[in-house]
């Protein structure tokens, strides 16, 4: 049996709030294989985002171990974590987090700035990713000239540009209406079909239906881990 892509063992996260300690994660263990499409669900404050931030190396666990692709990330320093985020992980945020007054193309190029990819390859790479998300004709547009759904697709192209092992999306449809949300989910479906590992956090059961596996959190603990025998498939509507 191959080693899983992600392996979490008894991960805990505690926040110090003045005198009080808040346990955001109370000992979570899980493993995710390469190529899986996983939804993380749970009520507000259950620790979903905290878990995602640990998986994405944006934050480090207070206790326990997390290994990505065989590397124990709890032992790494800031620069090494930055390199992992750059090469292995693509982030998609609820609020898109695009650089304002910067073209879609330059936004997509951002992770390449911090990679080893030679500069002359940047435009092709970014263009390819924008085409993949259906924005081949909007490359010069600034975020303010794009709809919410289009902005989120630029963000997905940015997550793809360094060919990461996994895509982490924290409520990617949270700021979108139902129809554009469906479009974005269709895009994730396509990426999954191409073999990408996708982990997304959502509140909405109909979004989670797209995933092949659902992890449910409650009060900082993993309470359910279910397989979805017949995941939903959506067609992308036109741009």
């Amino acid at each position: 049996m191959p080693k899983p892509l992600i392996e979490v063992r008894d991960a805990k996260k505690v926040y110090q709030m003045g005198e009080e300690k808040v346990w955001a994660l109370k000992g979570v263990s899980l493993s995710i294989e390469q190529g899986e499409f996983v939804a993380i669900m749970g009520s507000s404050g259950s620790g979903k985002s905290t878990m995602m931030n640990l998986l994405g190396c944006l934050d480090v666990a207070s206790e326990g171990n997390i290994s990505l692709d065989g590397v124990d990330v709890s032992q790494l320093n800031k620069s090494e974590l930055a390199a992992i985020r750059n090469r292995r992980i693509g982030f998609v945020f609820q609020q898109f987090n695009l650089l304002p007054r910067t073209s879609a193309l330059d936004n997509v190029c951002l992770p390449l700035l911090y990679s080893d990819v030679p500069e002359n390859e940047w435009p092709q790479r970014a263009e390819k990713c924008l085409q993949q998300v259906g924005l081949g004709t909007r490359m010069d547009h600034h975020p303010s000239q794009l709809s919410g759904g289009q902005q989120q697709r630029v963000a997905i192209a940015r997550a793809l540009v360094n060919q990461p092992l996994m895509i982490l999306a924290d409520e990617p449809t949270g700021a979108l209406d139902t129809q554009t949300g469906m479009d974005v989910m269709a895009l994730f479906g396509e990426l999954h079909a191409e073999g990408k590992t996708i982990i997304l956090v959502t509140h909405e059961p109909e979004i989670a239906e797209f995933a092949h596996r659902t992890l449910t959190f409650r009060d900082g603990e993993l309470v359910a881990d279910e397989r979805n025998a017949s995941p939903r498939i959506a067609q992308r509507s036109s741009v």
Partner: protein
Amino acid sequence: MKLLILFRTAITALRVNILRSFLTMLGIIIGVSAVIIMVAMGAGAQQQVDNQIKSLGGNVFFVMGSFRSSGGARTAQVVRINEDDAGLIERQVPGVEAAAPYLSSNGQVIYGNLNWSTGINGIDNRSFQVRDWEIADGREFTQQEIQSGAKVAIIGERVHKELFGISNPIGQTMRVKNFNVTVVGVLAEKGQDARGEDQDDVIFLPIKTVRNKITGVDSTNPKSVRFIQVSAYDGEDMDYIEEQMRELLRQRMRVPANADDPFRIRNVSEMIATRAETMQVFNTLLAWVASVSLVVGGIGIMNIMLVSVTERTREIGLRMAVGATPIDILRQFLIESIVLCGAGGGIGVLIAYLFVFLGNNYGIGAGGVIDTQVVFLSLGFSALIGVFFGYYPALKASQLEPIDALRYE
């Protein structure tokens, strides 16, 4: 991350807030241009002084009478030196080229219905030798005119312009105070002297004419003069000549060994040099004040960079999320601050050049001589300010935790 990309990123970021970037640079712009202008003005003044010393022949003394002292105390009695002293100095002090006696006064000069108030100097022809006066038109006085105290005049260019305009004054009769003189010569233009006085605003008459008609004859010292101008040959030891003149005059006036000199000897180039030194000190002081304004500009940069880091916390978080290391972030903000200061310095240099150019060519502002060394020094200094005052904000940015920065509202 490559340097070129860092610079491009920095310029893009600064362009987004172009007005603020410019206002931030203003401190550096003013500081750099002020430093360069101050130093240029200092150098320009120095050059002017050098030219003035050169135009005076470089080795000229003034000798004038002073109070006689008796028993260590000054008396009210003014000793006047006379024409014979001039002859004595010229003949007996080795190294002296010429010694020219002067009687000076001033008054109205009238030609036709025009009148002009000017300096009236009584001289003999030796003055032309001592002061390097050139005759532009006409001639010097003749020996006969000097000895007889003839009513003839040589006029400065300013007087020429004021009274005669463009017409030829030679042979014309004009009125000096209450007598008529004939103009026999016009002096070549000389410009301003070290005090900024117009050297061309003058007329020359034979010394005897001035004495008889204007200042009056001192019965106890009938050949007295206001001062003697002495020129030495090039390369002579000025201090030695001064000492020789002093001894000669003391002997001639029979001054007791313990009494002060009843006359004064001034070395003109030394006087100018002393004044130049004072000016130099003043200019250096101003340049330092300007440097302080550079530092103040640097603090302004630091302030804005801190604001910018706070404003762009989410951007920093995003960059970190997609792979920027703390060093990457540190460099980004440091380069931004260096670009800000460097651009400010560059604009400052341009302004300084413009200012000095206008000063030199059109008399707007102040003229001077720009030292390229100072230009590079102040450019380097402003880049250094960029590093120094940009470091702390950049460090703060680099030390942010990615997750906190991303969440920052």
